[in-house]
């Protein structure tokens, strides 16, 4: 790999993969719970809740990054509490980049899982009940496996989208090589430096290949898993 990519490029690539992987994996259980609540339950303020969940999709990522800074920053209410009590710090750290990516791509995961849950035949749950399956039993043996294609394709789409996250990351955790400088941030940095166009073009090509790979894998996975 080092023969094709420079050390800096490899670092940015691996960091991007790590940040996106952690972001999607950590957000997945919450996305499933949210999708389940939005699709199966009736409660007041559901439209508002759905709107809030989808907010990161339509808000400028810079605004999301700014809000994260306000809440999770060193002097923010949550940020200072986490630092004082648990020693966890998000600002200027790759975990902060993962948090930002998770939040931005959260609606993508929720949407895919929600569609899968709503597409499931409610008659199957009825059949399972008459055969003696309780609530948890149905969740584990019916709802989850039936929603699996949606979960997988949602996670892969969100992962691919997360690789391209720029605004929220650079606002929240800045552009630190080896710590928070993912591929898009590395492209930006290369463009800022004099004579960095070739480097930017190489990183851009790498991003395109990566995105293409994951979107295709997502498509195939969704089709294979369905039945």
């Amino acid at each position, binding site marked *: 790999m080092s023969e094709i990519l420079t050390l800096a490029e490899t670092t940015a690539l691996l960091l991007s993969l790590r940040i996106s992987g952690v972001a999607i994996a950590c957000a997945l259980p919450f996305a499933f719970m949210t999708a389940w609540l939005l699709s199966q339950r009736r409660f007041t303020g559901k439209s508002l809740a759905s709107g809030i969940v989808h907010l990161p999709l339509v808000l400028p990522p810079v605004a999301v990054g700014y809000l994260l800074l306000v809440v999770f920053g060193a002097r923010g209410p949550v940020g200072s509490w986490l630092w004082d009590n648990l020693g966890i710090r998000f600002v200027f750290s790759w975990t902060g980049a993962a948090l930002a990516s998770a939040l931005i791509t959260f609606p993508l995961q929720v949407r895919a899982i929600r569609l899968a849950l709503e597409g499931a*035949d409610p*008659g*199957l749950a*009825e*059949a*399972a*009940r*008459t*055969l*003696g*399956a*309780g609530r948890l*039993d149905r969740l584990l043996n*019916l709802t989850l*496996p*039936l929603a*699996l294609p949606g979960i997988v394709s949602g996670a892969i789409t969100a992962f691919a989208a997360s690789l391209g996250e720029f605004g929220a990351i650079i606002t929240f955790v800045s552009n630190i090589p080896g710590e928070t400088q993912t591929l898009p941030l590395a492209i930006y940095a290369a463009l800022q430096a004099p004579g960095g166009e070739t480097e930017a073009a190489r990183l851009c090509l790498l991003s395109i290949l990566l995105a293409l790979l994951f979107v295709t894998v997502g498509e195939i996975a969704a089709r294979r898993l369905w*039945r």
Partner: protein
Amino acid sequence: MSLEVRLKHRLGDFVLDAEFATHGHVTALFGPSGAGKSSIVAAIAGLSRPRQGRIALDGRVLTETPRLFVPPEQRRIAVVFQDARLFPHMSVQNNLLFGWRRAAARARAAARARAAAKAEAATISHVVELLGLGALLGRRPHKLSGGEKSRVALGRALLASPDLLLLDEPLASLDAARRGRSCLISKDWRGRRSCPCSMSATRWTR
């Protein structure tokens, strides 16, 4: 066995008002489509909650508005649905074993000797042979014909060792050639296992 049903239920403009008590082994509900047969089946199984009424099976009260409602998973009433409702992500074998596993676990937990013996007797090989499902066990439901689906659904319900078996339009989806045979099978099964059943049908060609 005895089954008592009294219910009033409103579905849009349609008001279902039914009352009957039965002591036979087989009870059949006849009526034109839209008469509410499936609604009665759903109410007995606990899949719908009547506005008003009482449902009891062998003296065990399952529904008594407004205070008592046993959820379907605790009723031990299996339903063979019109549209089979097989689980698409499971093989035929795992579909057949779905209710059987849970009935066996429940019997073990409660140490109910009669139910345990019943579950034991309901061996899968017996049902597989009876309904001719041997060649289908490894297949997924979407690879089955309509008639095959119905037979798997019937087998799945029988293997749950229910106290009552409800068949919703059991003849509608079975291919004509199999009709005679499956009627005989249900009879045979009832004789051996004393599993009463109720069915709804719009027409009975035999």
